[in-house]
Every structure is written in structure tokens, then in C-alpha cells.
């Protein structure tokens, strides 16, 4: 009896996934391949003072990659990004977990309102959030002591950028963790309570271990988010001297492509960043799995 279904099933799934595959191929895979192609090319102007004829595209081998990798500013931008990630990722994961556990606590009141309040910043576009925080940081417009604290100082700027990023994403991650903790079987907590566990003990000893896979996923999202840091520093840039146009790797890729007008170097930087993102994803998810298995 199952045979006809299987025959039919062999065809239907293919039809159903076709639109997704086509869209993915057209708008993600194809441009990515083109970008990789471009990263091995460069522009060469013709003779004459202003380059005479039309500039031509020529092969340049790995030159764009070696240029990026041998540029200390590239490594500096990577370092700045990692520094922000070192603040931002743990802060995001810890805050989201704490908020989720607090909201799930029996004694918690006004949870609906609190959940919305924590989530709301996620609904604020990154650029708007950065401008909003930027005004709070600037001495002339700061309600939070910008005149005394130098939010755009050589060290302060890392906190300032991380703060905007964390503020924006904590709510989203909190919702993921909160749904996870709500979907856990309630009788476990009741059993723990009957055994005399306090609310805090239940949260830390029972709920938290059960949430571990979700926490690992949240950590993964945060790491990828940190690698893609762009909106916040770009928006804060014109407000002070602290942020250069190559401050983090993505800003550098953008500057290469659209300011210095070399899409070729921009493509190379982007591709390097993709490789790093994939590597980071593999590492973080492997660590996450190990934590999950150890439990």
C-alpha cells in the first residue's frame, strides 16, 4: 500500500522545494560565486592622465587576499570586533538567560508587560537605536552623564558600541529562551519543589541544564551577530573621531567597495569574513553539542 505514496513522494518534495532552491541559488549562491570571482580581479585604467579609455578588469590572482591579510588595519579591525564580541556575546547570553528565568519564576508579576518591555528594543531598527544611543552618549545631548564619562574615548567606545548591540538583541534571545523554558515539562519543577528545592535552585539546577541546547543556540546567534557588526559603529561614526571607516571588518569591506570604489578588494574582505563566520559557527556549535552531550 505504501508504494504509490513513495512514488508520488519522490516527485512532490522536489516540486515543493524548487521555489526555495531557485531563490536561494539566484539571490544567495549566484551572487556569492560572482563575489568570489570578483575577488580575484582588479581594475586597470588605460593610458593617459585620466586613464584614457574605459577601465578594464584583469585577473590579479590572490593579490586582493594578500593585500587584506598583510594589512595591519585588517587585523586591527578584526581585533576590535573580537573585543566587542568578548563583551557583547556573554552579556547577551547571560542577560537573556537571566531574564527568561526571572520571567518564568513563580513569583514574577507583570510578566506580559516585562516581556514586551525587554523585547521592544529588538523592534527598533539598528540605525535608529544607534542614533538614539549616540545622542545619549554625546556630551551636548546626554542625559546619562556624557559630559563626565567619555563614551567616545579610546576605551569607552568599545563599551558604547557593545551596549547598543546588546540592548538591541537581548529581547529576541530572551524570547527564544523563554519559550524553551515554558515548553519544559512542569511536573519536573513541581517534583523539585516537593523535594524542597527553592525557586533559585529550581532555576539553576533544573531549568538551566534543560535549557542548555537553546542557550548554545543563542550563543551561536550572538557570535554570528558579532561578526556582522556594522550598523551600530557605522551610525555612530559621524558623531565623533573614535570610529574610522575600517573600524570593523564589515565596515572595511563596505569602504573598500563603496568608498574606495574597489568592489574587488571588498569582495576579498567579504569572502575572508565568510570563511571566518563558517569557522566560528562550526566551533561554537561543536562546543554546544559537547555541552549538550556531557549533560
Amino acid at each position: 500500500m505504501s508504494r504509490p505514496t513513495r512514488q508520488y513522494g519522490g516527485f512532490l518534495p522536489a516540486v515543493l522545494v524548487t521555489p526555495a532552491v531557485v531563490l536561494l541559488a539566484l539571490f544567495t549562491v549566484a551572487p556569492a560565486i560572482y563575489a568570489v570571482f570578483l575577488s580575484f580581479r582588479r581594475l586597470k585604467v588605460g593610458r593617459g592622465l585620466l586613464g584614457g579609455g574605459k577601465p578594464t578588469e584583469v585577473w590579479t590572482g590572490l593579490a586582493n587576499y594578500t593585500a587584506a591579510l598583510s594589512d595591519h588595519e585588517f587585523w586591527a579591525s578584526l581585533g576590535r570586533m573580537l573585543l566587542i564580541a568578548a563583551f557583547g556575546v556573554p552579556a547577551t547570553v547571560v542577560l537573556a538567560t537571566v531574564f527568561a528565568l526571572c520571567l518564568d519564576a513563580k513569583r514574577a508579576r507583570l510578566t506580559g508587560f516585562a516581556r514586551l518591555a525587554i523585547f521592544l528594543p529588538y523592534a527598533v531598527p539598528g540605525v535608529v537605536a544607534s542614533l538614539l544611543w549616540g545622542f545619549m552618549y554625546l556630551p551636548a545631548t546626554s542625559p546619562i552623564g556624557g559630559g563626565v564619562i567619555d563614551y567616545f574615548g579610546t576605551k569607552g567606545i568599545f563599551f558604547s558600541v557593545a551596549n547598543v548591540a546588546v540592548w538591541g538583541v537581548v529581547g529576541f534571545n530572551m524570547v527564544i529562551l523563554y519559550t524553551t523554558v515554558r515548553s519544559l515539562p512542569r511536573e519536573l519543577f513541581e517534583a523539585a519543589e516537593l523535594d524542597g528545592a527553592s525557586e533559585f535552585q529550581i532555576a539553576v539546577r533544573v531549568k538551566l541544564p534543560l535549557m542548555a541546547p537553546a542557550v548554545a543556540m543563542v550563543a551561536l546567534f550572538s557570535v554570528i551577530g558579532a561578526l556582522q557588526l556594522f550598523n551600530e559603529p557605522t551610525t555612530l561614526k559621524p558623531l565623533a573621531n573614535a570610529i574610522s571607516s575600517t573600524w570593523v571588518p564589515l565596515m572595511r569591506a563596505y569602504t573598500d567597495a563603496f568608498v574606495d570604489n574597489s568592489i574587488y578588494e571588498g569582495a576579498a574582505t567579504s569572502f575572508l569574513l565568510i570563511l571566518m563566520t563558517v569557522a566560528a559557527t562550526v566551533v561554537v556549535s561543536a562546543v554546544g553539542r559537547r555541552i549538550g552531550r556531557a549533560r
Partner: protein
Amino acid sequence: MYVRIGAGVLAAALVLTACSGNDTKPTGGSSSSTNEKIELNYVNWDGGMDKVVDDWNKLNPNIQVKLTKPSGTGYTLYNKLITNNKAGTNPDITEVEYQALPALIANQVVVPIDDYVKGLDTKYDKASLSQVQFEGKTYGVPQNVCPMVFFYRKDIFDKLGLKAPATWAEYATTAAAIKKADPKKFIGNFTAADPGWFAGLAQQAGANWWKADGDTWTVKINDDASKKVADFWDDLIKKGLVSPQPNWSAQWNTDMNNGTLIGWVGAQWGPNQLPSIAKDTAGKWAAAPLPAWTAGDTTVGIWGGETEAVTANSKHPAEAAKFVEWMNSSEAGMASLIKNVQAFPASPAGQQLPELKSPPPFMSNQPDYNTLMATAAKGVRTFDIWGPNANVTFDSYSNAFGGALQKKTALSGALDAMQDATVSDMKKLGFQVAG
């Protein structure tokens, strides 16, 4: 739609043939009627430009210009034009600041207009033409000249018993006097956000960042004159007499508006921008000649200044050029620019227009504002030519000077970084660079 455009091209070609006797090939189009309407797209970010375009549209019912404001100004726009050039989607006409024109020519974004616009040599002086003519071809009609000037809060200067400084040495002593009178006030700021501003100051000091000899470029961004300017400001910043905050930020706007910054090294177009920056201070500012390096020297650099150029993507280059010529060199066009955009014409004839007898609204207290501009314009000195990758130089300026201000290192070191970035990019692109 296709037929209409096609017919427009044919009509244009006929007009052109009639005017100049040039042999042009009409492309497509099945019927021809001289009453066909053409629409030209024009991109410009100046406030008030819509009224100038309206004036043209009233006079030219058959060549309607549609103005759009770009999503970003300066190099954001130029780089978009360079990218979109390949796709063929550029507007017919674009605003180009002088320093960006060589880059747009090198990328073949704009086309020569010699076939459509004649006799510019008799209407403009050599300095203005050198900004739009390259290798014997003309790529635009110069719109304005923007000499740098010193703006100061006359009310506060008067109260403190100070005068506008005539030399940079006086600028430094005045800065110190202001600081002494009120530690919260500054005579001005050093802006790492505005490469054109520093370039203008370097021009005044005698720098010549780019020079062309045949097909070979000479690049000297870190020359002695530029370093002199950097060292001068470095000293003032280290002494705390000048604010290191960049222009155009919320901080700067507030400080300009509330009397923290009581001076500004700006340019002719200042009164067009100031209303949105320091709206509460209208009528309180005065403009004075830019301080000189030696007393009595009237040399000044320029900051900004633009031309309109016709793009390679335009299907109606003749009409587009006609609009550009009308706006920037006809009496009606220039009068409209003065009135609506507060421009100061590059054309010597335009500088005599009666519209210049009254000051821009923001400078209502200074009736002879434009007389001052005319005097300043006579002393303008620019670089021989702007480099073909001034975008790289300018980006490097913001990074290098911003970094130096942030880390409190010597500003003159930033000029070396700019020099290196510029030369290595030019060599990479295949330009011939001496040295």
C-alpha cells in the same frame, strides 16, 4: 513609452543637426514631432534647488527636468554613480563637486559637452575652467566658487572686545583670549570629517597635492605647506584652544547653536547650511576674510564648489547640456541659483548680478556679505588638478586625522598616511606616478 523616448531622441537629433550641422545619427523612433516632451533626471542635494529647476521647467515646457535628492551626499553619490554606470541607470545630469570630477571622468561616468556648449572660454576665467577641463575636453559648466571665509559670532566677539583675526597668528591669540574669558567657549573646531576643509586650508598655505605632467602624476599631500597647517592646528588642539569635534554631528550643531563654538572656519556656502545647524543664531554671525599666513596676503583656498555634468547613461546629452549651461552660465539661471541656493557664481559676469546686492537671509545683519565673497574669490588658489582617486585620499583623511585626534598623536603624521594611501591606490589602478 519606448516610442515616445525614441521620437524625443530623433527630435533632439534634428534640433542638434539644425544648430550645429553636426552629423548625428538618430536612433529609433517612428514619427518625429518637435513638440515631443523630454524628461531629464537630475540629481542634486542642495537645499532650494527645486525652485531653480521649477524656473527652468516654466521656461522649457518640452525639456522637463525632474530633480531627485540623492540618498547620500558627496562620495556616497559619486560611488553610486560609478557603480550604476555599468548598469546604465544613472540620471541624465548630476551635481559633481570639483574634486570628484576627475574620478568620474576616469570611470567614464560623465561625458564631454564640447559639442553642445560653446564659448565657455570667454565666460569664465582660467582657474574656474581648470576645474572642469581635462585633456582638452570640457566636462561641465562651473557653477560656483566657494572661497573659504571665517565666520564668527559678532555679538559675543563684541562683548569680549575681540576682533576677527586677520592672520593665523592672531587666530591663535584670539583663541587664547576667548578661552581666558570663558573656558567653555572655543574659537572653532578642527574637523576630521571634512577633507575638503583641510585641503582648502592647505591650498591657502601653498600646497599642491596633485600635479600633472603629460600623463604622469606627482602627488605631494605631505608637503611642507600641508604640514605647516597640520602643525598649527595640532598646537591649538593640544593647548585646548580649539575643539577636536567633527563638523555636522549632533554635538557640533548644539555647540554652534548655544554659543560654545563662537567661530567657524567655513566657506561661502555657510549661510545656506547654518540655518539648519544653528537656527537660533540667525543674524548674529558675521563673515570675515579667512585669516592669512602673512598679514595682507589675500590668498585663500576653496572648500566645495560644484559643476553639473552630463552622464554617459543619458539618452539626451544635448538637452542635458543645455540645462546645465542655462543654470550655471545664463543670467536667469544664475539669478535663480543666487536667490534659491545662495550660490556665488563662478562666472565673473554672474558675480555682478544685482541679486548679489542683498545678503543670504541668515546673514541679514551683513548687507555686504557678497561683496566680501567677490573680494575673497579674487584671491582663490587651488591645486593644479584634483587626483583621479581623491575619494581614497578623502577617506584616508577622515581615518588618519580622526585617529590622530583620538589617540592624541601628531596630526602631521596623518598626512603621511594620506600620501601613502593615495599613491599606492593610484599605482594599483595603473596610473603613472612620479617618484
